[in-house]
C-alpha cells in the first residue's frame, strides 16, 4: 500500500511538472499550433532554401498573422496533406493552413474559417497536345492526374462519369507534372498555384486558359473550436481591410483581380451565416451528397473489392517473382564462386537495409528519365526485388540446414551435384522454408499498401480515400481489415495443411 501511495504521489508530481512544459512553458506566450504539410512546398509551406530549419510560404505568413492577432506564438505541426482533416478533427493542432480547399464535405465535419484566397482550377497538358486537349471533355479514355481529396479530384470524378476521363490520384503535387512531362498521364487538373509551379519546373507543359472551376483556401479547426474560428474570421477580415493579406500574396506573386472581389464580398458581410453565404457565392463545384455509415459502406464495397483484387494479384505476382529470384540468389550464394557470392551478399544487404518505400520511389520516379515503368509494373518489380532478398536468405538458410549426411548419401549413390540439389537438397529445403515463406507472403500482402505512393490504388489506399470521404475510419477500417484477413487466413490454413501432409 505504501509503495502504491508513493507511486501515485510521484506520478502526480511528475504530471504537475510536465503539464506546463508540454502545453506552454511557464512565462512564455501561449501557442497557436498550426498544422500543415511542408512537403506541399512553396508557395504554401516549405523549408527555407537558405535555412532549412525555417519555414516559408504564404500559409506560414498567414499563420504568423493570426498568431500575432491572438497574442500567441505560432508553432508549426507537420501533418501529411491527406491526413489534415482527420488530424484537425482529433485536435492535433489549433488550425490547419496548407492550401486547404473549401469543400462542402469539410464543412460538415470541421469548423471552417472564411476563405482567404480564391483560385481557379487549371488543366495542364503537354505543349504538343495544347490544341487537342482543351478541356476535360477532350480527354475521353485519357489519364488525368490530380491530388486526392481535392476539389480538382471531385471535378475529375465528375468528368470521369460524364466524359470518360480516367482519374489518377497522387499523394503529392510534384509528380503529377513530372509524369505529365514524361507522358505517363495526358493532363493534370489542379489549382492554378500548383499549375503555374508545375509549368515552371517542367519544360514542355502548357496551362489551358479555359476556366474549369474555382475554389478557395480556408483554415480548418475542430468542430468544437468554433469560438476560436470566429475570432480568426475577424482577424482575417481585418487583414483583408488593412491590406496585410494583400501584402502577403503580393510577396508570393499570387495577387490577382479575383482576390479584391472576394475580400470585398467577405468584409461587407457580417455575421456567421453570411460568411457561409459568402463562401458559397464563389463558383464552387459541389461534391456529391455523401451518405454516411452503412449506406456509404455498401456504396464503397465494390471499389474496395476491386482494390482487394489489385492487392491480391499484385501480391501473388510479386511473390512469384520473389520466389524465382530468391531461388537463383540463394543457389548462387551456396554454390557460386567467391565473386558471385560476394556480389549477391552485397545486393541482398543493400535491398534489406534500405526502406521499400525508397526503392519504390527510385524505381518509379528516380528511373523515370531512363525507363518509364508503368505504375503496376514498377510496383510488381519493386515488391518482387525487395522480397527476393528476404526469400533468398530463407532458402539459403534452408539449403544449409539440410543435414550433410543426406548429401553424402546422394553422392555415394552417384548423384551429380545438380541432381543432389534438385532431387534431394532443394525438396528438403523447401519443406523447411514453407513456414517462413507463408509468413513473408502475408507480410507482402500488407506491404503492398506502400505502392499507393506510386499511384497504384490498392486496398489500403482505397480505404483511406473512403475514410477521407466519410470522415471516419471505423467502418472503412473494419472492412479493410476483414478483406486483408480473408486473403491471409486461407493462405495460412493451406500452408499448415501442406506442412501436415509432408509430416505425415
Amino acid at each position, binding site marked *: 500500500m505504501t509503495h502504491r501511495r508513493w507511486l501515485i504521489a510521484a506520478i502526480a508530481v511528475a504530471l504537475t511538472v510536465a503539464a506546463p512544459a508540454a502545453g506552454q512553458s511557464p512565462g512564455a506566450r501561449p501557442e497557436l499550433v498550426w498544422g500543415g504539410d511542408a512537403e506541399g512546398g512553396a508557395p504554401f509551406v516549405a523549408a527555407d532554401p537558405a535555412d532549412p530549419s525555417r519555414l516559408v510560404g504564404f500559409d506560414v505568413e498567414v499563420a504568423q498573422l493570426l498568431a500575432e492577432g491572438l497574442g500567441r506564438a505560432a508553432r508549426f505541426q507537420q501533418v501529411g496533406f491527406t491526413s489534415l482533416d482527420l488530424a484537425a478533427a482529433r485536435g492535433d493542432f489549433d488550425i490547419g493552413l496548407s492550401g486547404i480547399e473549401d469543400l462542402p464535405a469539410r464543412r460538415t465535419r470541421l469548423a471552417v474559417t472564411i476563405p482567404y484566397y480564391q483560385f481557379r482550377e487549371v488543366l495542364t497538358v503537354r505543349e504538343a497536345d495544347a490544341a487537342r486537349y482543351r478541356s476535360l471533355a477532350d480527354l475521353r479514355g485519357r489519364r488525368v492526374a490530380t491530388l486526392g481529396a481535392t476539389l480538382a479530384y471531385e471535378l475529375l470524378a465528375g468528368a470521369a462519369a460524364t466524359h470518360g476521363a480516367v482519374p489518377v490520384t497522387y499523394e503529392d503535387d510534384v509528380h503529377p507534372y513530372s509524369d505529365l512531362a514524361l507522358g505517363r498521364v495526358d493532363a493534370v487538373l489542379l489549382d492554378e498555384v500548383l499549375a503555374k509551379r508545375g509549368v515552371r519546373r517542367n519544360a514542355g507543359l502548357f496551362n489551358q486558359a479555359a476556366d474549369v472551376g474555382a475554389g478557395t483556401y480556408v483554415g480548418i479547426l475542430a468542430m468544437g473550436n468554433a469560438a476560436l474560428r470566429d475570432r480568426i474570421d475577424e482577424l482575417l477580415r481585418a487583414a483583408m481591410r488593412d491590406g496585410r493579406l494583400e501584402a502577403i500574396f503580393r510577396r508570393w506573386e499570387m495577387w490577382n483581380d479575383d482576390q479584391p472581389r472576394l475580400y470585398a464580398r467577405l468584409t461587407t458581410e457580417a455575421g456567421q451565416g453570411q460568411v457561409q453565404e459568402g463562401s458559397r457565392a464563389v463558383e464552387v463545384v459541389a461534391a456529391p451528397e455523401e451518405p454516411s455509415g452503412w449506406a456509404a459502406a455498401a456504396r464503397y464495397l465494390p471499389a474496395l473489392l476491386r482494390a482487394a483484387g489489385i492487392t491480391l494479384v499484385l501480391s501473388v505476382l510479386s511473390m512469384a517473382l520473389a520466389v524465382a529470384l530468391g531461388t537463383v540468389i540463394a543457389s548462387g550464394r551456396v554454390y557460386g564462386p567467391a565473386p558471385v557470392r560476394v556480389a549477391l551478399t552485397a545486393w541482398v544487404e543493400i535491398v534489406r537495409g534500405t526502406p521499400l518505400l525508397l526503392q519504390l520511389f527510385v524505381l518509379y520516379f528516380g528511373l523515370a528519365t531512363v525507363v518509364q515503368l508503368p505504375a503496376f509494373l514498377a510496383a510488381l518489380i519493386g515488391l518482387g526485388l525487395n522480397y527476393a532478398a528476404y526469400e533468398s536468405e530463407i532458402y539459403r538458410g534452408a539449403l544449409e540446414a539440410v543435414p550433410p549426411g543426406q548429401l*553424402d*548419401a*546422394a*553422392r*555415394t*549413390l*552417384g*548423384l551429380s551435384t545438380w541432381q543432389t540439389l534438385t532431387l534431394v537438397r532443394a525438396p*528438403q529445403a523447401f519443406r523447411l522454408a514453407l513456414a517462413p515463406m507463408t509468413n513473408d507472403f502475408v507480410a507482402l500482402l500488407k506491404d503492398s499498401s506502400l505502392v499507393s505512393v506510386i499511384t497504384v490504388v490498392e486496398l489500403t489506399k482505397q480505404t483511406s480515400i473512403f475514410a477521407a470521404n466519410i470522415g471516419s475510419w471505423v467502418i472503412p477500417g473494419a472492412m479493410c481489415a476483414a478483406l486483408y484477413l480473408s486473403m491471409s487466413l486461407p493462405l495460412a490454413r493451406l500452408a499448415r495443411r501442406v506442412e501436415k501432409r509432408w509430416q*505425415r
Partner: protein
Amino acid sequence: MIPDQRGAGAPAGRVLEVSRLEVRRGGRLVVQDVSLSVGRGEIVALIGASGSGKSTVLRAIAGLDPIAAGRIIIEGSADGGAPVRATLVLQFHHLFAHLSALHNVWLAPVHVHGRARAEAEAQGRVLLDRLGVGHRAAAMPHELSGGEAQRVAIARALAVDPPVLLMDEPTASLDAARRDELATTVRGLAADGRTLLIASHDSAFVEACAHRIVVMEGGRVQ
C-alpha cells in the same frame, strides 16, 4: 588428389585394392600408410577404437573425401556405363527424408543409371523383400525403426549394384537381436558374391560375420 577408381588393375580375385593411403583433414594426417585388399565375396571388418580412422578410410574409398596420397583401385562393376563406385551405407542411414522407402531405393537407378522407372521400382521391391522390409515400401523414413531403416539403406546401396559395399558402424542403432539378423543378412550378401568392407567396433557382430579382420589404431593398420 582424386581416388583412382579405374576398372582395371586390381590383382585377380581382388575387387578392392588400397595401397599406402593417406588422408589429411585440416592439414593433419588422420590416415597414413593404410594398405588393404578385399576379394570377391569376402567380408572384411575394419575394427578399432573411435577416432582410429576407420570411417575416414571408408569415406575415402567411397570418394566422399579427397585423399592426400596412395591408390584406391576398384574392379569394374557389373553395371555398364555408370561410374565405378564403392557405395557407402552411412552410420545413420541417411535415407532421403522426403521420399518413401521404395522411392529411396529406385532414385539412383533411374536418375544415375537411366533405368526405366517401372523396372527400377520392381527391382527395388525385390531388394526390399529380400532384406525383409518389403512390407515397409510405402513408409516414410521417420516411420521406420532403426533396424528397418538400416535394411532400406542397404537395399538402396545394392540397387546401384556397386562392386564393393561399404558399411560404417552398421550396428550402431541396433539391439542385440537385430544385430544377429544383420550378421545373417551380410553373410547372405557375401554368399551371393557381394564384396563387403565393414567398419565396426562391435566385436560380437564382427566375429559373427567377418571372414577377415583388419585392426586400425591412430590412423594406421596394425
